[in-house]
């Protein structure tokens, strides 16, 4: 049997884009914070529009996860991305268009962290 870490990593790097849906459906909705952390990191590393949207604009997921270990790990992965353009673009849209003030505030914080690295 394969380890959950390897399966999530494989889905994150899978060439079939439907892998992102599986990660969202099972990984980000898991009650297991370790699974949520691995999933959010894999989605961040994938660095595609679809994968980043899941962890950047959804309340309770990714950078908005109520568990600090999960949200901090995602931010850390985002910081390590070589190309942060898509992430910054989605964060900007979230800040200007999202209806939830909490989500907007967190997006603003994360955007500031990413910009401080440039």
């Amino acid at each position, binding site marked *: 049997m394969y380890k959950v870490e390897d*399966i999530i990593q494989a889905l994150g*790097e899978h060439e079939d884009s439907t892998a992102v849906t599986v990660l969202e459906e*099972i990984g980000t909705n898991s009650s297991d914070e370790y699974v949520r952390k691995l999933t959010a990191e894999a989605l961040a590393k994938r660095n595609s529009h679809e994968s980043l949207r899941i962890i950047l604009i959804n309340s309770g997921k990714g950078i908005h996860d109520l568990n600090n270990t999960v949200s901090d790990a995602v931010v850390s992965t985002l910081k390590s991305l070589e190309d942060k353009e898509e992430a910054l673009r989605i964060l900007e849209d979230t800040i200007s268009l999202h209806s939830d003030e909490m989500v907007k505030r967190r997006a603003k914080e994360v955007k500031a962290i990413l910009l401080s690295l440039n």
Partner: protein
Amino acid sequence: MVRLSLHTPKTESTVKAATHSNPFSVSFKNSISPDFQMLKKDIFERQHVESNVKNTSLLNKISVISAKMNNKFKGISFNGVRNNMETMSNKAKTSFSGLVSKISSLFRKENKVEELKTQPVAALKEMLTNAVSSRAAQSM
């Protein structure tokens, strides 16, 4: 393309294992440690190691370990370390074997992930569901 290199230009005799054809093309023929045998197996069974390893995080991890090897065994060639394992202190021996073992383990993990990536997403979905359920059952 990130090229792995254990070679530093400062010292010719520094641990080195990178060439143009294979980043780990050191001869492991007379390896005396099981770790080396394992490393040989892992690396040489991966025929296209350099072109196939696209996982930059893996490459970065290996680079970090490689740098540690360089620091710990400065001035001694890779073969020199390997051939003189018996005369090395236990601490140095353990350290060197540990580093080699870590690289080996990274390659094994990479192999597993590469194998999984060839599976259809539906199969991976089922595997993930089972793995998550199994974790939940274990924590109860």
